[in-house]
């Protein structure tokens, strides 16, 4: 015990000696949290830029009736979700082909989508006014840029708004069935929603990134370590001392992140202390990942490569790219054993749902830390050291 205490003191002495690095240790989370806080200051941009081409005046069944064309165009011009400029409204009296809509569009209109000037092209077919007038089913077409995931996932719903405005304009609601959303446990509108919806993943990434970095070089870069092993200092205590001392530094970093995010208006429905506990737990897991990396690596470059590799791996498998529910059972189990996944879920449950800490997830993180710590000790014990 005495030896462990001395080793902890030695670790703190080492950390304090490099003042520049020590300042940087606390400055780093502060800078990242300021950037995070300011990163959504521009407000929501949620409209889709559109162009509209109308073939309504093209002859259909012998008529070129187009009385509802201007009402439909106005509905798009007045939409709050679809951003249509009047100079991007085109009218054609021939050339409509419903089996090859995109290919039959005039080149200048196609080019708008190809160049990314608009995200969607709305096409009014030749029979539109006729079908509305006869109160039979009408179809509008829209060609959208599916290379943008955001457009692909939300254009369909956004396109409903101009249709409703059109229904209001013609005072005909027959056949309208609407699904109206009222989310529960969402971020209140008077809070910064963009910031708060991304807070769980970004704050956890910041904590993990800084805490893994704390210890990733702690073993591999310590020159006198092999010589120290000639003294009565025990290898297990050496690793434990590093874990304890760097965990103390990480706790201060977590506090900086915690107060920093509060200053930028983090919305927390649940207990603030629970959020702090989540941050510290994730930080502890980062410290243990870093220690393991440092024990495995034989050079600083290797440790750096493993650090970045592990960090990118954790982000890719955090559930941000592939939803956990869509993974097969084995992959889900693996993802659920990662501290990043449990940390994000705990953060969301406390901050948005107001729940208390889920003990199962807390246990998963604690087991994760313990397993990595034991692995680090075992690897360090068997590590060859040249004095």
């Amino acid at each position, binding site marked *: 015990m005495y030896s462990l205490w001395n080793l902890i003191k030695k670790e703190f002495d080492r950390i304090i000696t490099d003042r520049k690095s020590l300042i940087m240790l606390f400055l*780093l989370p502060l800078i990242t949290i300021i950037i995070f806080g300011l990163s959504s200051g521009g407000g929501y941009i949620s409209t889709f830029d559109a162009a509209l081409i109308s073939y309504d005046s093209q002859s259909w069944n012998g008529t070129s009736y187009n009385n509802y064309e201007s009402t439909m165009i106005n509905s798009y011009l007045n939409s709050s979700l679809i951003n249509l400029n009047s100079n991007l409204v085109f009218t054609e009296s021939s050339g409509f082909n419903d089996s090859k809509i*995109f290919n039959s569009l005039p080149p200048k209109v196609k080019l708008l989508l190809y160049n990314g000037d608009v995200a969607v092209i709305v096409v009014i077919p030749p029979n539109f006014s006729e*079908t509305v007038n006869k109160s039979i089913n009408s179809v509008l077409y829209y060609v959208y840029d599916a290379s943008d995931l955001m457009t692909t996932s939300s254009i369909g719903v956004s396109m409903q708004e101009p249709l409703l405005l059109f229904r209001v304009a013609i005072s005909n609601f027959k056949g309208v069935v609407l699904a109206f959303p009222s989310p529960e*446990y969402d971020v209140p509108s008077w809070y910064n929603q963009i910031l708060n919806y991304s807070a769980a993943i970004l704050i956890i990434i910041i904590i993990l990134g*800084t805490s893994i970095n704390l210890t990733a070089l702690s073993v591999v870069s310590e020159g006198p370590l092999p010589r120290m092993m000639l003294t009565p200092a025990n290898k297990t205590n050496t690793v434990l001392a590093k874990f304890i001392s760097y965990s103390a530094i990480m706790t201060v970093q977590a506090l900086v992140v915690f107060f920093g995010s509060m200053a930028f208006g983090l919305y927390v429905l649940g207990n603030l202390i629970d959020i702090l506990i989540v941050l510290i737990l994730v930080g502890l897991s980062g410290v243990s990942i870093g220690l393991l990396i440092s024990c495995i690596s034989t050079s*600083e470059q290797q440790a*750096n*490569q493993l650090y970045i590799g592990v960090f990118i791996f954790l982000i890719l498998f955090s559930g941000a790219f592939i939803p956990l529910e869509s993974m097969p059972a084995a992959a889900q189990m693996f993802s659920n054993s990662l501290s990043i996944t449990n940390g994000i879920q705990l953060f969301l449950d406390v901050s948005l749902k107001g729940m208390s800490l889920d003990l199962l997830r807390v246990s998963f993180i604690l087991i994760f830390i313990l397993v990595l710590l034991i692995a680090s000790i075992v690897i360090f014990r068997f590590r060859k050291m040249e004095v």
Partner: protein
Amino acid sequence: MGLKESFSRIIKLLYKEFSLIKGDKRALFMALALPPLIISAFGFVGVISDIEGTPINCAVITYDSLGYYYPQYNTTYYNSTWDSVFINMFNNGQFPRLKLKIFYNASEDPYSMHEARLDLASDKVDLIILIPAEFSEAIDLGFPAIIDNIPDGSNIETIKDSLNLMYTATNIFVETNNITPQINMNSRPVYGVPQNANEIMAWASTISLPFLIIGSCLTLTILSVVNEKPIPRLLITPAKKGEVLAAKYIANSIIMIAQCVLTVTFASIFGLYISGSIVDLFLALFAIGFYGMCMGLLISTISDTETQANQLLVAVFLIMILLSGMFIDISNMNIVLQVIAYGLPFAYAVPLISEICFKAKGIFTNPTLFWNFMGIIIICMVMIFLTYLIFKLKRKEV
């Protein structure tokens, strides 16, 4: 004559650089093996995951059988024909991905809503669908019939998914039961990911490929100047500072090219979708990797100690992640941060990869893409100049 000598010195320095890189075989192996391994693991999970089929568990509450008082005619309607049609369709699985988990009839259980909210809180369901009292009456009388949907707002993806799925469900409901007149929207996606491609890999490649390449190039070079003890002594020989740096750029570029080739090869095995030219994709990735290398060498030159270099690496990498547009769109950022974001590679790299992979645009045939590519190259040039300047002015103790 001077140029020839300089060239010969660079060749020798290159030999020295490769000897140094070869010296740590494990690090070299990691540099070449880690990015392909990570992208393969991600691609593999993408292949075996089923995003399109993941159900959204729903609780449906109907209030439709309750009386609806119509004040204009002072009449109470008890019509609930359409809610049973809707619920039957739900039960028969006619609405894609929406799974009826729990059903409540508010006319029989007055605490239905309370119970459904408890189900939502305990994650038994992801979405509450509420059919209001006037639902059937509204359809029969030609009013807009509204179905309330209450998704779990703590997950932004659930909100988006439930909105899209409910929109599809109402369309199917209206079409199947021929409730007329309908005005439907017929969508025609272009430039998307084909059905047979690995959708997850395709979408994520625009951000994961640049991340992996930049990350591995940063770590490749981050210690190459600050860690190299004999550099000050090397400078006593005829080797010039510019030549020492040039050798480092060339040697690391060769490793970086190998990293890019391996990463794209492994990503392709797991279904990376490239509709454009593979040469353009490689050119884009080389430019992105070169950015990572230039940034790594700049940090290594600025830093006095390895610890400082590592801290700067983390700071730069975290800032890159925050301002990449991956989580918060660049256009939604504060104007100052937008300026910083445009000094970082992702503002150029993501559209570059996306346009090549999805729209088959060429770097040298499309002006926008060309300027995105040039944007990266210009920033690299500025970084090389700064690195040279700092390296030249830096004090070296032999």
